[in-house]
């Protein structure tokens, strides 16, 4: 396992896409900061870092697994490793660490941007706890996105399809979920558990009053539901990965 993790980190570090991901995150955060009026809400939301990271992470996760098939390296990985679980888990672990590092970087950039744009207008003491909850919610949702991306690439075997579905989920998933629940109000108790609804965890933990009305889930419920989907996608993804012929 240790050797496999080292190997995956080595590849990830040398693959430029991981570095480009961080640069794109930085550019998009700066764009968000200067194109919108800065308020406590935008600072707590890390200048939109969560939204951008879901797109970046789904692209990187999908590419990180699909490149093994594209380069035929999956054959070497399979026969050199004792079993397939070691490979899948190592990739998952690397992507989770990357998400954590990206989030830490986004918080650091938020600190700088806030000081540059509004200076001492808002006090950190009023923002830090909400900012931390936003980061926590985003981290949980990024794990949801990583397991989903690995599942989708194992099913569709096509990077473009996975990235397309990821973009659909990020931009339209929440609206779709709300639309479904509005159209079938009698079934909200069931529909509120749908996977598109999980994206609200990113903001709900920081702004529970506003978002509980939209997601129809309490903070605890949305955390448990996200963890349930992470485990489900993880198990399904591994099962598909294991079955896939090489």
């Amino acid at each position, binding site marked *: 396992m240790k050797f496999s993790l080292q190997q995956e980190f080595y590849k990830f570090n040398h693959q430029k896409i991981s570095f480009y991901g961080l640069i794109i995150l930085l550019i998009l955060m700066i764009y968000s900061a200067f194109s919108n009026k800065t308020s406590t809400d935008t600072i707590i939301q890390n200048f939109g870092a969560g939204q951008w990271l879901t797109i970046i992470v789904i692209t990187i996760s999908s590419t990180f697994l699909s490149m093994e098939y594209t380069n035929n390296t999956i*054959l070497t990985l399979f*026969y*050199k490793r004792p079993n*397939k679980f070691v490979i899948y888990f190592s990739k998952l672990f690397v992507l989770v660490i990357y998400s954590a590092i990206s989030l830490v970087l986004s918080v650091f950039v938020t600190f700088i941007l806030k000081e540059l744009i509004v200076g001492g207008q808002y006090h950190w003491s009023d923002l830090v706890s909400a900012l931390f909850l936003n980061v926590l919610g985003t981290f949980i949702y990024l794990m949801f996105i990583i397991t989903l991306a690995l599942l989708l690439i194992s099913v569709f075997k096509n990077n473009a399809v996975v990235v397309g579905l990821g973009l659909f989920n990020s931009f339209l998933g929440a609206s779709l979920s709300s639309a479904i629940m509005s159209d079938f109000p009698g079934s909200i108790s069931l529909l509120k558990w749908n996977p598109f609804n999980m994206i609200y965890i990113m903001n709900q933990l920081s702004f529970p009053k506003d978002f509980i009305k939209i997601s129809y889930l309490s903070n605890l419920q949305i955390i448990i539901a996200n963890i349930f989907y992470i485990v489900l996608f993880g198990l399904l993804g591994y099962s598909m990965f294991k079955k896939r012929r*090489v």
Partner: protein
Amino acid sequence: MVKVNNINVFMGKKHIIKNVSFQVKPGEIVGIIGPNGAGKTTIMKTILGLLKFTGKVSVADRNVTEDNHRALSKVGALIENPAIYPFLTGLQNLELYTEDKNSMKTVVKQLKMQNYIKSRAKNYSLGMKQKLGIAMALLNNPNFVILDEPMNGLDIESTILVRKLIKHYAEQGTSFLISSHILSELQKIMTRIVIINEGNLIINKNIDDFKNINHSRYKLLTNNQKESQKLLQEKGMLESQSNKYLLVNEKNIFSIQNLLYKNKIQLLELAPQQIDFEQLVVRSLNKKAEEDEI
């Protein structure tokens, strides 16, 4: 070293590999030959535990299954295309799997890759990639190496180099299972031949025994070929015809001479049929096809 015992592979309902068994002993170079789609790569993948199969595969007396590859710790392979990360240099690709840096340096030197090993693999030519793939298979002093079409994309100089290297490793005790469409190259190195067709094992012989099949046929020319053909057919001693010659089995040549003498037919030529290795392989494949039709 490697034992393949009665393996069967199915892809959906299609029976791809049918009851195939053979062994690869230490230091042996086994050439696996067959037409496209015969099942050569499938057998190689099965030995590497990459496919679901029935039967038994063991390497150094340890079983290989689809879920357990621990027996493959000292096995190297090049299957289909070289497994290379284009964003890494050749050296970094090797470093990913190396357990012994000295072994890595040796392989790089043996394959004469020093000039470009520190460049990114995405800029490599087909031949350079192929050599890197072979180098990866030879890393960490393996006991057993599988090479699927190793000469693909190699120039003459590299082909000779790889051939010599395979022989060198085999002399040190490494076993090889090699497939190649370039039979002349395989012929120069292999010590055992395994012929596969439509998932069936047709021939599994020591290379010298296989070449001796060549001498079991004699070509015959008489002063009355028509009458000779009739006589031999009647006695069931005619195998086939080739141009102006009648082809007969070595074991019947004395009986045939007596038969011709009794019928006052004079012998003009009776000599071992000389056929090359490729023809021998094709003949083996055709013979099996004819038997199946019967």
